[in-house]
């Protein structure tokens, strides 16, 4: 059976209500913020967001918050443990009838890739292990963005960051491969994991609706096109986000109890089209074209899809 959307077939079906209001201090064209805005439309207003240090920490700046729901800033390394404390306390208070049922909240961790891929990996692993009933929303802009775009373990091969400069010694920028967090999460066998993109709102909304049916960890990786960190005009966020998916670099998929399904199969445009738009890859093309590095990136993408297509019949039809 190909993957099909059941709840969100047309863009008009996405709720018009806004639960994340504009006017925040985030950068213009933030892909992560758009992904979160779409997610909140499905999550609704009865939510407590548990935040880790990162760009989104600047969403709630005293005395303002853009959310309809509640907010708790924790630390960079322990937002999932904060979610544990809140969920447990809500359960205890509900059980002891100190809190009416209608006051219950969804608990959503909100963290960037620096926290998610690096510092909070242990806390996340433990939360999944305990089968904590929570959502995890990672806005992955592939670097420590809020501190000035330094290398994180989500930074892809070939990207220049402020701690992986391109130089004579390292002409390609970072030569480390992006950590495959989807697979690390999947090894824990949580009920629901998905990758999402703000450029695919129906896919995104459908996944949050689907995740809501499961009790336990529901984890999302949102590739968050980042004009500030990636070096492109904020108006191009949708195009950069679109090409990340269309080149096959960011596969849209989900895993239910560990079973992976690709929710969109791109025609796979050359990765070069995606790379060329961004300042962080500029050195791969100017002043001389680094053919080997570009071929390496294309090769990884091609190998991924050949393996996935060969290994699975569960592809979406679009």
């Amino acid at each position, binding site marked *: 059976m190909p993957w099909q959307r059941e709840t969100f077939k047309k863009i008009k079906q996405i709720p018009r209500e806004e639960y994340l209001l504009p006017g925040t201090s985030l950068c213009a064209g933030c892909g992560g913020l758009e992904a979160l805005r779409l997610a909140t439309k499905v999550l609704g207003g009865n939510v407590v967001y548990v935040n880790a240090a990162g760009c989104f920490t600047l969403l709630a700046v005293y005395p303002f918050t853009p959310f309809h729901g509640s907010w*708790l800033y924790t630390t960079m390394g*322990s937002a999932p443990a904060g979610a544990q404390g809140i969920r447990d306390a809500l359960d205890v208070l509900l059980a002891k009838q100190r809190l009416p049922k209608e006051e219950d909240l969804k608990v959503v961790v909100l963290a960037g890739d620096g926290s998610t891929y690096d510092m909070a990996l242990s806390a996340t692993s433990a939360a999944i292990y305990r089968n904590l009933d929570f959502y995890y929303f990672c806005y992955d802009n592939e670097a420590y963005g809020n501190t000035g775009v330094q290398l994180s373990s989500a930074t892809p091969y070939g990207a220049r960051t402020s701690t992986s400069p391109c130089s004579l010694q390292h002409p390609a920028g970072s030569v480390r491969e992006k950590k495959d967090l989807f697979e690390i999460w999947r090894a824990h066998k949580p009920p629901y994991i998905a990758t999402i993109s703000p450029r695919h709102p129906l896919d995104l909304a459908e996944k949050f609706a689907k995740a809501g049916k499961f009790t336990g960890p529901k984890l999302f990786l949102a590739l968050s096109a980042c004009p500030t960190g990636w070096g492109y005009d904020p108006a191009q966020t949708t195009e950069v986000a679109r090409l990340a998916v269309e080149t096959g670099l960011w596969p849209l998929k989900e895993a239910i109890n560990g079973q992976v399904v690709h929710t969109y199969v791109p025609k796979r445009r050359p990765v070069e089209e995606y790379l060329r738009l961004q300042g962080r890859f500029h050195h791969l093309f100017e002043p001389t074209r680094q053919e080997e590095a570009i071929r390496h990136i294309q090769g990884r993408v091609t190998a991924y899809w050949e393996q996935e297509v060969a290994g699975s019949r569960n592809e979406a039809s679009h």
Partner: protein
Amino acid sequence: MAIHEMMTGNLAAAWGARLADVDYVPAFPITPQTEIVEALADWCDNGELAARFVTLDSEHSMMTAAGAAAATGARVFTATSSQGLLYACEVLYTIAGWRVPLVLVNVSRALAAPITLEPDHNDVLSARDSGFLQIHAETCQEVLDSILMAYRIAEDERVCLPVIVNMDGFYLSFTREPVIKPAQEQVRTFLPPYRPAHLGFKASAPQALGVAVLGGAPYSHFRHQMHLAASNALEVHQEAAADFARLWGRRYDLVEGYRLEDAEDVLVMSNAFATKGKAGVDEARTRGRRVGLLRLRVIRPWPAASVARALRGRRSVAVLDQNLAPGSGGILFQEVAATLYHEPGRPRALCSFVGGLGGKDITVAEFEAIFSQTQAAGERGQGIGPVLLYTDRERREMEGLLTIAGNKQ
């Protein structure tokens, strides 16, 4: 007639949490704290305590879960020790800033490196400026009683800050002493159910907690609020102590004086080794020395007025720090010295001794050395220190170890 039961400091701590009727216990094991969380795990499991017990992946996560649950409206208890407290250090500051009134028991254990198991107070004093209040207990009974008082103080709306109750590893944690358990019904009158007006996440009343501030002015405001709240705890502690004494007959002050009435020279100590200090005072008095002991019980807020009152007019004061700030000396010595600076009747000499590091014993002979050096300093009008307490025998044994390790003497 109250019944004494023999119990360890750890079990007394667990009983403190149980009698406080806590809702939530996030836990992570570390020697010498483990017996506390083991007892609570057992009681939560068999229903004797209506609380949820959850094991976390680190003390950092444990303290985050503890703070978040308290922010949601649950009464929370947890415990750690030594490296665990340091691992949680970031979170201590964070959740104190959330103004959540939970109680954390720290079982003191000296810090690595070199790694060791027995107590000193560098661990708990590393949290000195975190915003947690600190009560340091001398006996197993005081551990239990202080936990009940800690909830009462923490949850008072003039305070709204978390509290650390400290006990020494091994000397209290694993030592059985006679302890009286207050009756549960009486505890309820002393400590009403936790129903915070200012905290709680719920659908009908969203709130944002721990939010960022831009600029130093709002930051200074909130930090100053914490300072004022912590200072309020001096008064709130005394009210709680009075109620406690009325109910159970045991009176706890911010500081405890021992044979101070006519003392010329005073030794300042804290925690379980103060019992050794009191024995040292008794011994010195049989030799004709007019000495006494001041035990620091509440370390945060710093009870400056009580310390000044107890020490003004003395000839000489010695502070025995069971901690060491390398490059400076004893930590509490600095605080006592700062307190006495403006006292017109301040002692003629202040002496700083550092002892009991890593649980090293302090013998009666060492106390005698302290008293004689402190007296001489007072007569001279000039303090000494920091002086490390170390006996000849210990030095010889250490030289033996160094030789085995290949160090030439």
